[in-house]
């Protein structure tokens, strides 16, 4: 296990570069994200440990980060001031662009996964999701419908123009960005949903993680009943990610200080519990390049 200590910063999200297996980014905030500024860390995994490549400060807390899928230098973050920032790891001057349309915190950003498009989706506490072309100063569309804050917005890895959003209103929504409409509303939990993700090997399968401490796996072709309900966390589930290497394996992290690895298709779904943290675990990612490098976790 390698440890990176960020002075005066508390991690919210982490993502491995889609281009370079040793490079990862961490969005972090001062004072636990309650007040103060934020920092984007770009880190490198080496034999000797994890080293800092560069870092960028922002005026408010940073709560999520996503790498560009078409330029190894570019990252996007979401901030507590309602802005979306574009950064260049090779440009120390500050953000390339700042996109300001959301009226409250931007809690989620995601770069489109399909090769048919180059888009970013942002989810905000203003109850809206916005889709952006990173090269344009204004959003392409604003999608409304959630009745609570949006905690998570994730592009489908299979269907162009399609993303899912998880909200404090207890629903998971599936959106068609091209038509600008919500295609599906799933009352997935009777509590706030803090996270969601798409299965990488079945375009119809998604997972949600909630304040009710459970994960629910859904087949979008029949949402009357979940495919699986995974219990074991003792507090709210902050983030969930499907494995890029296996159709039924996923990882979750929680305010119970643990990271758990699951196989929802198995008779014993819980594969492993990692208890390295002593505080809330807010983010995780799988390394796309290294099958056995499964989980990366920042902590509050």
């Amino acid at each position, binding site marked *: 296990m390698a440890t990176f200590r960020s002075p*005066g910063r508390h991690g919210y999200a982490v993502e491995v570069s889609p281009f370079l297996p040793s490079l990862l980014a961490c969005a972090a905030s001062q004072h636990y994200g309650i007040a103060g500024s934020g920092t984007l860390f770009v880190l490198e995994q080496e034999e000797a*440990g994890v080293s800092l490549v560069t870092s960028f400060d922002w005026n408010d807390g940073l709560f999520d980060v996503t790498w560009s899928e078409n330029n190894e230098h570019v990252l996007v973050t979401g901030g507590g001031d309602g802005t979306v920032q574009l950064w260049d790891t090779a440009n120390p001057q500050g953000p390339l662009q700042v996109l300001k349309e959301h009226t409250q915190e931007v*809690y989620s950003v995601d770069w489109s996964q399909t090769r048919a498009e180059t888009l970013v989706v942002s989810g905000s506490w203003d109850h809206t999701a916005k889709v952006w072309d990173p090269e344009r100063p204004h959003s392409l569309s604003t999608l409304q419908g959630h009745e609570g804050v949006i905690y998570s917005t994730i592009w489908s890895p299979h269907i162009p123009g399609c993303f899912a959003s998880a909200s404090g209103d207890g629903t998971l929504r599936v959106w068609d960005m091209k038509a600008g409409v919500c295609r599906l509303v799933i009352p997935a939990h009777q509590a706030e949903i803090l996270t969601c993700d798409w299965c990488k090997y079945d375009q119809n399968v998604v997972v949600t993680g909630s304040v009710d401490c459970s994960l629910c796996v859904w087949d979008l072709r029949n949402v009357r009943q979940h495919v699986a309900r995974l219990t074991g966390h003792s507090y709210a589930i902050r983030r969930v990610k499907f494995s890029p290497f*296996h159709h039924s394996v996923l990882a979750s992290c929680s305010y119970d200080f643990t990271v758990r690895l699951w196989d929802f298709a198995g008779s014993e779904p819980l*594969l492993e519990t990692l208890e390295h943290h002593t505080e809330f675990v807010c983010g995780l990612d799988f390394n796309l*390049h290294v099958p056995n490098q499964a989980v990366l976790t920042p902590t509050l």
Partner: protein
Amino acid sequence: RKWSLCTSASVPLTSRAMQLSSPLSFAEVFRRVQAGEEVPGLQELDVRPCHSAPTVSRLSRVSKPWEKGSETSQIPTKPVHIQFLPSTCALPPRIRGCHRSEGYDRGSRWSWRKPSTLPSGGTNPTGLLQDGQSGRRCSHWRH
């Protein structure tokens, strides 16, 4: 493949903002923000966009594992784990059962559930306790 431990001493302080941060506990920061009190080390930065074009990409897009159809038959049971920790003198107190949500007032981004809706267990599931104190609860319940 295991990554060896990287200690905090090997991580440089790269910005003035990071150097200014104070190691206040979560509970103390939250209390001060709720009370409208000053939070020591709070930075008021004025970072602005440089409106530059991004550095030209030199790498072609890498195919995703699912695009290659390279699903593994074996389930990873011992994932490599890289940990991020705030470099503070003492880690914040264990405050369980809370999550980010709309603030009760400006600047607050945390909320706590009523005891009836919290999972059971934990030393302080219903609110905030200062270090060394007991019985002190957050008065801003989320309904």
